[in-house]
């Protein structure tokens, strides 16, 4: 799972839906059987895509996720970029590209801060299916 996708997903337990704590899911507590594993995977750089996706990112949540995964380099406020091809924007767009699209969470788990349910990630694929007792 790419870091960008982590910014799109929340806890799927219906009762958590209205709680502000169901998003983002947290990486701060990992279980011993499934240690957190990150890899870098090259993706072609598309400044247009980063520009288009920037407004859809919840910045505070991204800061939390990045911090939990060991990155504290992000600016506190969401940058505003109008021209994806301006030279002065290139470094920032490349940094975001590397963080959002090239950082893969291969294995690990995500925790809902509201209900405490843990979602596993194996082979880069998160599993959001719920056990019987959490389905309404």
């Amino acid at each position, binding site marked *: 799972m790419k870091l960008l996708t982590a910014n799109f997903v929340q806890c799927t337990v219906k009762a958590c839906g209205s709680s502000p704590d169901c998003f983002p899911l947290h990486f701060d507590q990992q279980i011993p059987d499934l240690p957190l594993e990150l890899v870098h995977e090259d993706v072609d750089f598309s400044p247009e895509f980063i520009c288009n996706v920037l407004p859809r990112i*919840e910045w505070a949540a991204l800061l939390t996720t990045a911090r939990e995964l060991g990155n504290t380099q992000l600016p506190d406020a969401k940058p505003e970029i109008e021209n994806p091809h301006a030279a002065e924007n290139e470094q920032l767009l490349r940094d975001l590209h590397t963080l959002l699209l090239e950082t893969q969470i291969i294995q690990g788990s995500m925790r809902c801060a509201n209900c405490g349910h843990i979602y596993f990630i194996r082979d880069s694929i998160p599993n959001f299916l719920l056990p019987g007792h959490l389905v309404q």
Partner: protein
Amino acid sequence: MTQYLILLAQKHESFRKTELEALAELERVSVDLSHHDDNVPLLYVTLDCEEDARKLIRRSILARSIFEVWGRGNSLDSLHEDVKQRTSHLWPKYKHVSFKFDVISYQGSRTKEEQREIIESFSYVDFDGPIRMRSPEEVFTIVEEYKSKTDMLPSTERRELKDICFGRFIASSQRDIIDQYDLKKRKYIGTTSFDAELALISSNIGLAAPGKIVYDPFAGTGSFLVAASHFGAMALGSDIDGRQIRGTAKSNITTNYSQYNIKSQFLDTFVCDFTHNPLRQSFRLDAIICDPPYGVREGLKVLGSRNAERYADKLPTRLENGDLSHLRPDYIPPKKPYHFDALLDDLLFFAADHLVDNGRLCCWMPTANEDYGERHIPMHPDLNLISNCVQEFNKWSRRLLTYERCPRGCTLSLRPTTKSGRVYKEQFRDKYFRGFAKAKDHESVEWMEQSL
């Protein structure tokens, strides 16, 4: 303004106009397609410039090629007259370029000799450049369409010309990539993999393009994901069946992406039940393109238990050794059957929530030919149905329904939502498995009771 001729594939005719309209919108080309006829493979259009002609067709799957029209008639003589009148000022421009001539016939054919005769009858254009059969600079083409057999008197021996056109070739479509994406050559496929040609057409109609995020909530082996990514979109997919999403170590959705060399367009896949979707409410998608499971090749299931009382205490199940069963890596959550119509309604609600303004939902829906009616098409007040294309089989059809999200703030609130008023009756799969014969009333009622 110049007249152009588009040659169309004689396949999936009801999708052709919708695809071209979508491409015109995507490429911002102004064109009137209202005279498109499903029965005619020749479509004449008026465009601003040659650049627009190239743009209109460059992503198309159902158009074959586009020509600048130099003349048109219903006989060779009237064609020559028109060519002389319309284009004599253009002839000097092509006097010295390398070129070749082609003859394309619909509903009829010409012998090699006849073709040569026709080509030679154009000698008055007086091109002096070299004739090259391989990669010439310009290709001039005579396109002719004959009247179909039913339009002719039985005594007429030779088929009668309906339309003949002379044009300069401008560009080809992407029709040749159907072969490249052919399921027979794809490394990772499953029983529910979707026909490559129709998946590519769906992606065109869904306006998949660079910079956009396209989602398939019933991704399976990722047929729509690779199609959307081929056109430059970032693709996101999910499925309740993790095995399909995962594949094997050597053959899976990402290896398909590598096969097509579009790996950078892959966003992610995740395992989830559509009725418990993890995508947060405020997250916006540019398009949703999917073929929801209707229960013929795969059972339609969602999270939940047939026996709801078992989980009434809301406590996790413990194994004999005290471990919580759902934390084991091999845990399989309980699932229950679901109604296809209910799933479609859920899909429309989801699309209304998550699509950007003017974003599109393209969803396939099977219908039995015996009792199809407009009432079967699900509706939502925030979604405008913009096309309903049909692929017909013997006793059933599948339709590609395309909806556009109304811009927020101008909802068509007068239209009713179907969800509340809809009674979930017999499912498509029940009709399918009884071969579309007449239902015994008690059977469908029984099914309804079982599943609700």
